[in-house]
């Protein structure tokens, strides 16, 4: 058998797993691995902060469907990964994080840069490992990739003490069989139960007001094609969560766009009045359901998900189908094709009703030629990119506008921190996405508050000549918090005004990127056109927008869909609370 240094074994396994890019930042305990990476034949991206590295690996994974890899040193390096790992964990993104640990004989002595990383990351990873014997190193690394990418995907962390990376040992790379056999308790359920699939098909045939509710699971399972086929076959309207965007083209007449707290009026009305809800790789998040007891009160619910723990967690389900979404949908479609119904006729009334809702309250905003409306910026980004760009958003109002006013037509097109709601996610994730998908235009739509949380990594984007476009929706506020304060806290704007801001144009220039600014609606198209021409470095556009624009419609937290706020509040006027049904 071959003999190698632990650090070289790490690189060998990464190569074996087909890794072509890693993100990270070196330090004492991981130096041996970085030494080995120096000669490795893949892209090694040095970031300025481990959190950004983690989001980059995450954005890379979301955009490409591959496992993202992030490397950090012990102690502070590893603890800086925490937010990134938790973000990936909540959205089920496959990541492998490799962290250095102090040498084995120092563990537990409060050594320099020591932290109990296994303990710290246990609740925010799908699984984690501390390597205690070099003989286990190749198997653990292979297990990490296998666990990260199979079943309900998620981040896996491998903590490697420095002396193990230095130690020389005989080794071999374990086969796929060995990896599976070494995890006897881990058997993700891929095939859906055929009896349940038949039951689901029966419900679909009988339903008069069905809705497909599609989440991120459909994207992760690469099931967009099946979702689209099912919807078009059975003429069922489709609403997606913000994690499910792109699983069904939003340009299709059957699309209801997003549902939930900032969902469209017609998506929420359709769900509220439905008699059958088919949840596909979605988990009934509270931002989707609002008040549980009034969520789709008349609907029977079919839930297809690979994670049994997601089923009947908050909403009791009538037909649970545990399995891979793609696999289950293929069988369900086959079942429906065998005993077809006159679908068009069966859906006539329902689709007519939905069309009425669409016409009554389409997604809209008050346009202006004096002040830039954030929604207008997003629409213009949509126009100039022909709807084909990958959009990565931070967290806040801009995220919701990016979800509402850009129409997504293919999977892995909209990247955002749906579950954890991590400010600072959008820009580094865009860098990772652009590195993974250099063929696509990648736009980071960021808030001024969100962007500043990982601004340091502009340096990384410049260093590696990653031509991402950054659109800052700059309203000088932590906008979403301000909106809540306006609606629910009597406009007491406590600690939301970002009264000191950098000059974003100069900031970009100081990093070696291009900085642009638009302060009037008439400048928006022009700066976007300029930004599209630059392809050798990042471009930052500072859009100075209407400071007090709100994200609407909105279902207040914990309220029913019947209590939607639909129209923007005018000065001295209460916002309209609609009671529907």
């Amino acid at each position, binding site marked *: 058998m071959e003999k190698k240094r632990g650090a070289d074994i790490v690189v060998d396994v990464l190569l074996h797993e087909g890794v072509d890019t890693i993100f990270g930042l070196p330090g004492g305990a991981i130096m041996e691995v970085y030494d080995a990476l120096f000669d490795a034949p893949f892209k090694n991206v040095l970031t300025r902060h481990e959190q950004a590295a983690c989001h980059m690996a995450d954005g890379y994974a979301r955009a490409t469907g591959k496992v993202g890899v992030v490397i950090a040193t012990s102690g502070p390096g590893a603890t800086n990964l925490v937010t990134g790992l938790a973000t990936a964990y909540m959205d089920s993104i496959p990541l492998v994080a490799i962290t250095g640990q102090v040498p084995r004989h120092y563990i537990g002595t409060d050594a320099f840069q020591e932290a109990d990383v296994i303990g710290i990351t246990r609740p925010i990873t799908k699984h984690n490992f501390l390597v205690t014997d070099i003989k286990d190193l190749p198997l653990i690394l292979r297990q990490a990739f296998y666990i990260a990418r199979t079943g309900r995907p998620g981040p896996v962390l491998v903590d490697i003490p420095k002396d193990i990376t230095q130690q020389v040992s005989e080794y071999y790379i374990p086969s796929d069989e060995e990896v599976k056999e070494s995890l006897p308790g881990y058997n993700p359920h891929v095939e859906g139960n055929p009896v349940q699939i038949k039951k689901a098909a029966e419900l679909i045939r009988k339903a008069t*007001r069905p809705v497909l509710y599609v989440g991120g699971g459909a994207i992760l399972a690469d099931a967009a094609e099946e979702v689209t086929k099912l919807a078009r076959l059975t003429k069922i309207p489709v609403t997606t969560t913000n994690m499910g965007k792109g699983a069904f083209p939003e340009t299709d007449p059957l699309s209801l766009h997003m549902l939930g707290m900032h969902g469209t009026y017609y998506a929420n009305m359709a769900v509220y009045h439905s008699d059958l809800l088919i949840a596909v790789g979605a988990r009934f998040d509270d931002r989707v359901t609002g008040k549980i007891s009034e969520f789709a009160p008349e609907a029977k619910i079919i839930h297809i998900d690979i994670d049994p723990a997601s089923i009947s967690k908050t909403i009791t389900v009538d037909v649970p189908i545990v399995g891979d979404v793609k696999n289950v949908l293929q069988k369900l479609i086959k079942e429906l094709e065998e005993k077809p119904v006159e679908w068009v006729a069966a859906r006539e009334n329902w689709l007519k009703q939905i069309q009425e809702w669409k016409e009554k309250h389409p997604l809209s905003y008050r346009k202006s030629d004096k002040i830039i409306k954030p929604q207008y910026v997003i629409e213009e980004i949509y126009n100039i990119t022909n709807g084909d760009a990958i959009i990565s958003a931070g967290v806040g109002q801009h995220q919701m506008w990016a979800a509402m006013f850009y129409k997504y037509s293919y999977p892995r097109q909209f990247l955002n921190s749906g579950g954890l709601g991590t400010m600072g996610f959008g820009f580094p994730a865009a860098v990772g996405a652009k590195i993974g998908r250099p063929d696509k235009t990648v736009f980071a739509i960021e808030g001024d508050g969100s962007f500043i949380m990982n601004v340091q990594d502009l340096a990384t984007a410049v260093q590696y000549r990653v031509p991402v476009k950054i659109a800052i929706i700059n309203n000088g506020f932590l906008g979403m918090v301000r909106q809540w304060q306006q609606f629910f806290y009597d406009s007491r704007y406590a600690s939301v005004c970002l009264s000191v801001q950098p000059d974003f144009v100069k900031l970009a220039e100081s990093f070696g990127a291009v900085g642009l600014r638009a302060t009037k609606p008439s400048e928006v198209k022009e700066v976007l056109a300029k930004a599209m021409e630059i392809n050798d470095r990042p471009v930052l556009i500072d859009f100075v927008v209407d400071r007090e624009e709100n994200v609407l419609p909105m279902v207040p937290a914990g309220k029913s869909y019947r209590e939607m706020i639909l129209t923007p509040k005018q000065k001295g006027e209460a916002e309209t609370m609609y009671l529907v049904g």
Partner: protein
Amino acid sequence: MSEIKVIKERPQPEKKIGRHVITVKVQHNFGVLARITGLFAGRGYNIESLTVGRTHEPHIARITIVVEGDERVIEQIIKQLRKLIETLRVRDITDIPHIERELALIKIHTENDRTRDEIMRLVNIFRAKVVDVSTDTYTVEITGDEDKIEAFISLIKPFGIKEMARTGTLAMVRESATSKILPGERFD
């Protein structure tokens, strides 16, 4: 077209709170117990007792968890336990004939001969055992299900308990009373 009227509320499941006995087989790896207890702590589930030890297979440990909660909480606990990579098998054996045992060590004050006699009588009735004697204490070992131990403790309490340690419940399905398919195996 007039709007479809919806007036109903989504029916909510009843909350029947009960005591459940859950057995878990896990790979006997470093940190596995922390994973399990962390799962309970992080999700706000309340453990009544948790016991853990090796089995006849050296790489497998067996855990018995006693937990109180409504159906939904118990279902989540079982599903979340099954999600752990190192979990081999999870069963809720509450409704299956099973054996429950707990061991308690109780150090009891013995004032005089009369109390010593009294305690010995109770020890014999309960088929417990005195495992240590000093001038003013007896230390008693008792095994049995929770009810038996609780009953013994309540009878012994008036004498004065100086110290007590309990292992928590261990449980195992009663082979003599089970068929091949068990009602608790819904998710396996």
